[in-house]
């Protein structure tokens, strides 16, 4: 959601009005979750999707263009018959309900403000709920809350924006810079930590949510919580050891360290001497990343990002042999 809103801000440079289509219901299966969005610009530009391309999005685009001209919101149902469903990769025919509404990109629009507010709540570590009341006539009304909210009828659509998970990135290296960019796009809250001011800079980490310079083990400790991904890319044992001693015993979701196999084995041996158990040490992903063979910083960053996705999705490939 946050990433889509950032892209929407970029779209503002070229478009003044867009139709925002939100997937609010699906029968017969849907490749995208409810709440998925497709923006149709008055100038023809498209952003996002409510299906995986194909004829569903095309029909939504047509409706969007029409409703932009008519300057009104409408609930629309797009039907896919069995033959079309096979082409779309669905098991059988399906119906998709969409709320399509004109949005102004000039100044503040209540809908965009609502989603920005929800994204900010999510980035602060809390889940957010965007409650949309769909009127028979006129624009939909929205409210945003951090309290769980249940839909109270067919004219109320509730979107749950989960709390953003945090990437704790220790080491302002080039690999770290690439990973920060990728992970921001994956919806993670990115916290960059280093002991060196020259590396952890806003120039190098333009999209990071936080940049912290100081004693890395002290700065990282408050983030050792459930759902955190701790990634050490400084290639500095002075930072790696103190952080690993704590992170591997914390309920974080992932701990990875940039290292060749020899260095990784040496660090694991030191951790064993320090009293960490084999189970705790086995949580460490090092060498880090999926083995896709890249050597450049951006390639290594991509392999790490891919591993984070695999961990999030519980895929066996996440654990490198």
């Amino acid at each position, binding site marked *: 959601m946050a990433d889509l809103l950032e892209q929407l801000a970029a779209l503002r440079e070229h478009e003044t009005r867009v139709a925002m289509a939100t997937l609010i219901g699906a029968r017969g299966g849907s490749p995208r979750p409810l709440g998925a969005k497709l923006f149709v610009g008055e100038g023809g530009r498209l952003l996002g999707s409510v299906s995986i391309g194909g004829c569903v999005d095309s029909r939504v685009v047509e409706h969007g263009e029409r409703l932009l001209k008519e300057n009104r919101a409408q609930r629309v149902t797009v039907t896919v018959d069995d033959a079309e469903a096979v082409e779309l990769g669905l098991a059988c025919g399906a119906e998709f309900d969409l709320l399509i509404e004109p949005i102004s990109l000039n100044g503040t629009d209540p809908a965009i403000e609502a989603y920005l507010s929800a994204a900010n709540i999510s980035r602060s570590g809390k889940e957010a709920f965007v409650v949309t009341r769909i009127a028979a006539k006129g624009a939909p009304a929205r409210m945003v809350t951090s309290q769980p909210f249940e839909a109270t009828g067919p004219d109320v659509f509730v979107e749950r924006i989960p709390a953003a998970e945090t990437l704790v990135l220790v080491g302002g290296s080039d690999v770290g810079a690439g990973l920060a960019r990728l992970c921001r796009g994956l919806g993670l809250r990115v916290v960059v930590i280093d*002991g*060196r001011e020259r590396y952890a800079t806003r120039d190098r980490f333009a999209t990071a949510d936080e940049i912290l310079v100081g004693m*890395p083990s*002290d700065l990282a400790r408050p983030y050792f919580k459930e759902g955190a991904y701790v990634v050490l890319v*400084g290639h*500095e*044992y*002075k*930072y790696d050891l103190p952080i690993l001693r704590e992170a591997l015993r914390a309920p974080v979701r992932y701990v990875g360290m940039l290292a060749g196999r020899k260095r990784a084995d040496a660090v694991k041996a*030191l951790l064993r001497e320090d009293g960490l158990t084999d189970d705790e040490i086995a949580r460490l992903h090092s060498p880090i990343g999926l083995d896709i063979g890249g050597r450049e910083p951006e390639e290594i960053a991509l392999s790490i990002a891919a591993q984070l996705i695999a961990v999030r999705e519980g895929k066996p490939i996440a654990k490198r042999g």
Partner: protein
Amino acid sequence: MTLPYGAVVLEHFRRPRNQRSLERPSAAHEAFNPMCGDRVRVEVELQAGKIVAAAFTANACAICTASASLLTERVAGMAATEATAIPESAMIVALETEVPKAREACATLPLTALREALRAGS
């Protein structure tokens, strides 16, 4: 990880003395080397001009960590003025290993932190 240092450095790096935070420090200072990224925070508890306890926290290399360990052992019970006067060369000698010129700053960083802490606490 094979570290090319003598027994004293290895002993104090792997089993550092006084690596903790003091409950009631009279003074503290965190020093860092902007080039290599070593960071060491030294805390002291002072009573009547005397160091009754010294401790440190470090995210630092083996030389710097060992130096901080040796220093905090050495200054416990010492007058603050006496501790401030410890020369840099003494820290390098105490490590009982050949410290390359480029790494001397690692060995003396804890002493810098201690001096700054004592200056602030005086």
